[in-house]
């Protein structure tokens, strides 16, 4: 069996570890008249870490990704609960299938169609106008960016939460009910702790995907203000500054490593104690 583990490891090495090493090395390169030159300079790191626009973009991106993870997790939970516990297996299978359907279409295309929904004279405003509401302006705002992030992450979070809840042992829930525990208390004290790993994983995915997304902040957020991924593109576009773009990318990767570590600790931490 060990042999069959080799190809994916080789694949990851060739297409993730090697480019990653290249990316880190490039943070020390310089650009001379639009041409990349191998070098050993700290100038790119100094420039980016000192730049006001980097700090603003970093805080903004982090906040929006966190907000998306929270909104996606909280809003998906009632639906995931219903899917996992309240529906007939056949209905549940159908709805899970429907949650996969959005992934049939490429994400940029879905974002473009969302742009049409939210344009000033678009579908949403046309629908709410007869009710005396609106018009709402969503495009080119942080709200637009978050809407895009949710288009990307919500179906995934809902799926992951549903699978996590489906794996909660039914007898634990029944035991809680038999002992007189109410529905909400059962959710909070039995279901959520038992499904914790899956729920935390779902939120983490939402954060990771939003933090690195380029499409939603560009086409729904109007780059106003730019996120870190847009900053990467800007650095390349504005002077072929791949080294500076690499610095931004490496800080993003480091951030995600820290976030993942924290979330894994949250997911698995204290389990032995809890079970014991």
């Amino acid at each position, binding site marked *: 069996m060990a042999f069959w583990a080799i190809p994916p490891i080789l694949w990851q090495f060739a297409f993730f570890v090697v480019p990653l090493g290249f990316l880190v090395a490039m943070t020390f390169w310089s650009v001379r008249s*639009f041409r990349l030159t191998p070098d050993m300079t700290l100038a790119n790191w100094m420039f980016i870490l000192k730049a006001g626009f980097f700090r603003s973009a970093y805080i*903004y991106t982090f906040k929006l990704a966190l907000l998306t993870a929270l909104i996606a997790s909280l809003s998906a939970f009632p639906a995931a609960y219903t899917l996992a516990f309240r529906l007939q297996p056949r209905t549940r299978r159908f709805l899970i299938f429907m949650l996969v359907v959005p992934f049939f279409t490429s994400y940029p295309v879905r974002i473009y169609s969302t742009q049409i929904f939210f344009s000033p004279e678009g579908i949403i405003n046309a629908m709410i106008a007869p009710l005396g509401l609106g018009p709402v302006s969503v495009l080119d705002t942080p709200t637009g960016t978050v809407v895009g992030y949710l288009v990307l992450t919500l179906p995934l979070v809902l799926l992951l939460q549903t699978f996590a809840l489906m794996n909660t042992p039914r007898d634990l829930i029944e035991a809680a009910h038999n002992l007189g525990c109410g529905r909400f208390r059962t959710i909070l004290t039995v279901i959520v702790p038992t499904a914790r790993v899956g729920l935390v994983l779902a939120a983490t995915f939402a954060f990771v995907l939003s933090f690195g997304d380029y499409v939603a902040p560009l086409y729904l957020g109007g780059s106003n203000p730019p996120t870190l991924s847009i900053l990467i593109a800007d650095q390349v*576009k504005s002077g*072929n500054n791949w080294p500076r773009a690499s610095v931004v*990318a490496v800080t993003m990767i480091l951030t995600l490593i820290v976030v993942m570590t924290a979330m894994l600790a949250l997911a698995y931490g204290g389990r032995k104690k809890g079970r014991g």
Partner: protein
Amino acid sequence: MTDFDGKFTDFRALLHPFNRRRFLQGAGTAAGAAAIGISTTSAPAHADDKVLNLLSWPGHGDPAFVKPFEDKYGCKVVAKEYVGGEPMLALMNQSPPGSFDVVLADAEYIHMLQESNFIDKLDPSDYPLKDYWPEFQHFPLHWVGNDLYSVMIRFGYLGIAYRTDMVSDSDVQSYKALWDDKLKGKVGFFDWYLPTMGCLSLYNGNKSPYDIPSDAFDKLKDTLFSLHPQASGFYSMADQFSMLTNGTAAVIPGIGDWVVLLLQKSGVPISATVPREGGIQWTESMSIVSSSTKKDLAKAFIQYASSPEGQARSAILPAYWASIPNKKGWDVLNKEHPDDAKALRLTYDARNVMDEYKDGKIAIRQTPIQQSIEDWNDAWSEFKSM
């Protein structure tokens, strides 16, 4: 009828908004993109004798423009597209020799291309420069001393583009309108530092908007930054068309007829003006790439693009329209597409684009002279993230 039923999706298709390179730059794939970005710039077809490789702004490889040339020479024009002069310089610097035969660039980058030995000296007698308007027969940025390096194909003016149902013509007679309270959150920007900062430099009273000392540059930054509360967003080339169409942006400074004319044709209430402080001229010109192995074909292509027929077709390029410098091209356009000639103001019986040029309100777009491109770019990055 609503504004989203197909009109602007057409433009997106034409302008290739889903630029793979830009999507690859998303952080999730940053590592891969870094590697890909410096390895995919070679055009696989460049060795083929029957292929002319063109490096250009979007839309110049459109059959509506290149088909007669392809038919005559039995070849195929393959265009690699860029947006903005800096990405063009990057592609020229990083692509293997022979990747491109012809480069279409803005005049302000021609000297940089020449200094790096990327483009060939041209023989002026090979091209119909004598048919050009006198102002463009010896366009300074295309010449180094007495040597010609690039042939002008198109030009246009940049001022303010505005939705006529949201802003009146009298409102936008000065760039001051951009700070108007009623335009808060409605001022869009083309995401490229050069045109917008040039227009704002004119607003600040700099007669040579790109040749300014450090105190004027500091003042320009203050002017730019003070506009941020008005900003709706920072748009790609294609997104400008859709955001003006759907009304998310009511005005965009630093652009002009090249965006407006096509939208007008689709019924969008929109116009463009050069405010009283002045406007910026953009130009596109073609040069033969020094490392090309098909220089005869490259020369023939530039001859076609500067010929009356090529000029008339280029003026109404489906991606974006432009003025043309060849008077015989004006004649063809007036004969074959009189309405389009009128919309472009390329007619002889009314006030035309050359009259505006003669008014002295138009400054030629250049890269910064007393500061570096990087300084201006960094100011733009700061502006975006405020």
